[in-house]
């Protein structure tokens, strides 16, 4: 048996995602987000986590998901990545799953719905698929996207 890893799971636009629990600092409900005008689309705004400013990532934008019936994310997952805190806005959180490496597969090649660079791979669960996200790319990626935007603008 290979070593198992804990994943925090969450729901977003009907998809089921997981993120390594070691990167997750905490979960928060209904933190108020202050929009930052002119920021990248992927950044919804900033919020106050006990005196610290934390950027809130719009996961629908980040993952290029279509929001059916409006965005109603009410839970933020606070991640510590590259020494900075970020908050992922998600619809709902699920259980914490302890999964073995056995069920893990690289992302299928026909994965068009979701920004593939972010998905490390897929865990095949008995009833559904769990998409594992790469936390470090969530931060970098939006930065890169932003830079591209700036390049285009000039």
């Amino acid at each position, binding site marked *: 048996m290979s070593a198992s890893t804990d994943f925090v799971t969450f729901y977003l636009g009907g998809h089921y995602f997981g993120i390594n629990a070691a990167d997750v600092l905490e979960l928060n409900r209904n933190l*108020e987000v*202050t929009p*930052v005008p002119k920021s990248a689309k992927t950044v919804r705004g900033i919020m*106050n986590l006990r005196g610290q*400013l934390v*950027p809130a990532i719009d996961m629908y934008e980040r993952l290029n998901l279509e929001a059916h019936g409006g965005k109603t994310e009410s839970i933020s997952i606070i991640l510590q990545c590259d020494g*900075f805190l970020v908050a992922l806005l998600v619809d709902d959180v699920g259980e914490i799953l302890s999964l073995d490496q056995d069920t893990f597969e690289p992302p299928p090649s026909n994965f068009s719905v979701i920004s593939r660079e972010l998905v490390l791979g897929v865990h095949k669960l008995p009833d559904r698929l769990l998409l594992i996200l790469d936390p470090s790319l969530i931060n970098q990626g939006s*930065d890169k996207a932003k830079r591209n935007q700036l390049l285009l603008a000039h």
Partner: protein
Amino acid sequence: MNDDDILVEFIIEAREILDQLDLDFVQLEITPDDKKLVGNIFRAMHTLKGSSGFFAFKRLEKVSHAGESLLGKIRDGQLTLDTQKTTILLSALDCLRSIIEGIESSQTEPSGNDAALVEQLLALAAGKNVEIIAPQTAAPSPAASTLPVSTPAPEVQGLSVASSIPPAAETIPPSSQITQVDTGESTEEVWAPDPADPVKNQEVAAPVKVNLELLDRLMNLVSEMVLARNRLLPFTNQFVDHDFSSAVRVIDLLTLELQERMMKTRMQPISQVWTKFPRLIRDVSNDCAKKVTLIQEGAETELDRTLLDAIRDPLVHIIRNSIDHGIEIPSERLNRGKPEMGKVLLRASHENGMVVIEIADDGAGVNYDLVRQKAIEKNLVAPQQAMDLSDLQLLEFIFLPGFSTKSQVTNLSGRGVGMDVVKTNISNIGGSIDIDSKRGVGTTIRLKIPLTLAIMPALFIRCGSEPYAIPQSSVLEMVRLDLGAESTGLEDFYGTPVFRLRNQLVPLLFLNHQLDVNQEMPASDAILNIAILQSSGVRFGLVVDEVLNMQEVVVKPLGPLLKDVKDFAGATILGSGRVALILDVDGIAIQSGMVAKIQSRPMNAASTEEKSYEEDVAMLSFELEGQSRLALYLENVERLEMISPKQVQRNGNRDVIQYGKDIMHLLYLNQYIEGAEGRKTPKNEDDVIPVIVHYTNGIPVGLVVSQVHDIIHVSKNLHEANPPQKGLLGCVSLNDQVINVVDLQEILMMRNLQENSKEYPAVIDMDLSS
């Protein structure tokens, strides 16, 4: 700060440097190619040498100088570090440490002979091979050679991160890290420096250095505490439990005090760093045989303590450079027609949410030709290209490591460490550095330190549904502009909306457009709220939806994800726990393209502006019952306040109100001015009384008027009232209207006479009876 304090600080600093050097050397042997590390070690040694020079600790100076020479060669790549060199450098380090310990116990340098050690160091520096003889003065031969070079232990890997942080930027608990090395490697006991030794700590009553992160964390916790307190307070109204209320009250007071103290721990006047400088200047100028005076301005400017620590070394370097390189020797100064005594000016101020520190000297300025020549010599630029370089481009070379125009290496400078260290240190705290130098006139260095941690007053405004803060330092005034009224409409100046403010055109920016919040344009009869802002030499009006309040804010950086949004300088957390963004006035002005536009087409010819300054005088216009056009010199006005009749209290025979910490007397102007009628008593309690606050001998006096109008600029030529009128100086004309200028001195005198004679004039009695 006296010399003893300076010595104590020196010892603390030297200890820190030595501890850090120990770590760095061990790391360096594992990664001998780490140029940055060699640079760090070299600089640390350089600092130690420089400081010991001031105290005339000759042994210390000689050993560190020799060590530095060897390290310099290693840094430049002329020599490579091997075990032999490490060993000898480490024994130099031990020697330094034992000297420092001697100084600490006896206040003077212990005697001893380091000639052998110095000789070995210099011989190695010269590229010779030497037999290592265990130096007599140093501690037992260090065990550097026993260190496993090829197998770095994980602990040591972790160290590389720590050692790349310059000592000034962060306090590193050295003892714990050393312990890690000790357990990981079979190093001898001698290696562990022991700052925790209680006996030693008693000798030098070291101030407790608190880890930066811990302080930040505490700060955040205190802010949280305040918010939690705010949520608790409303409950005292809901429950009429006396014990509960008093418990909450205690928590309230404690939180308040905690918050104030916390703020205070962080803010310290810059004079703390500056107190060292008169001595420094004296010593350095003596060494160079120059005459220099130091002028300090703005020594009370408060800076976050972490920033203070970080600017200390850069400032020392810059000042040393100013004297050594900048100021000429007295005879040369006289030849050039300058006063014999050179000047170094230190000026600190808050500017646009930054702390600006200027170090200006009236010396020879940067020798651009020499810089060009050195740049060519060091192969930094091709000779042909060098000729085309502008002065500004040449100044860039000064910041390169190892660049020095001094041909002779001295105790003070000339090794080419200095400006690159300064730049590294300043950019480590997110600051910037500018040099401006004119041949023969002098050099000005401007350090801009961000207020990332500092507190500043800010004006809150609303745009769309969100509040934003504008640093108060950039707000000149607030204007309400009624577009419906005649002669005040918006005009168009080459595509930029402008309006007239006291006969000057002021360009307008709409904040909602600027921030892409919405694209609404104000209706043609709307009333605009305009904040007149000053940025990078451009004055402009920012149209906002609503003006809220003034509040002190703690600026927090937006973090890497949002740093590209140039419109914001940071964010702050409001009392409610919400985040509010702080506008970057410079950023907005530049982003909007307005700065470029205005610079290409000046709106108000500069000459007329200067003229207006000379001949005009600013007054505040207001009215009283029966006297609709009165004015008061603006310099007499401290603030404008609206007070409620409920606040007014009787104190003996006068009306007073509580004003901040002071008690402010109210002075009803209509009683002193000819032609004014008695004041109407406010009919209901919701009315407000406009009061002009004037300070006389540091005591506030509230001048009660019926309405305040505007700031007007009128000609200085006053038509004197003839025959004299009570309470009036004379009159001026503005747009065909005659405006009476109030004689405040006379009025204050009249009031004092009344107070002294204890007689109450009939007018006042009348007023009271109503």
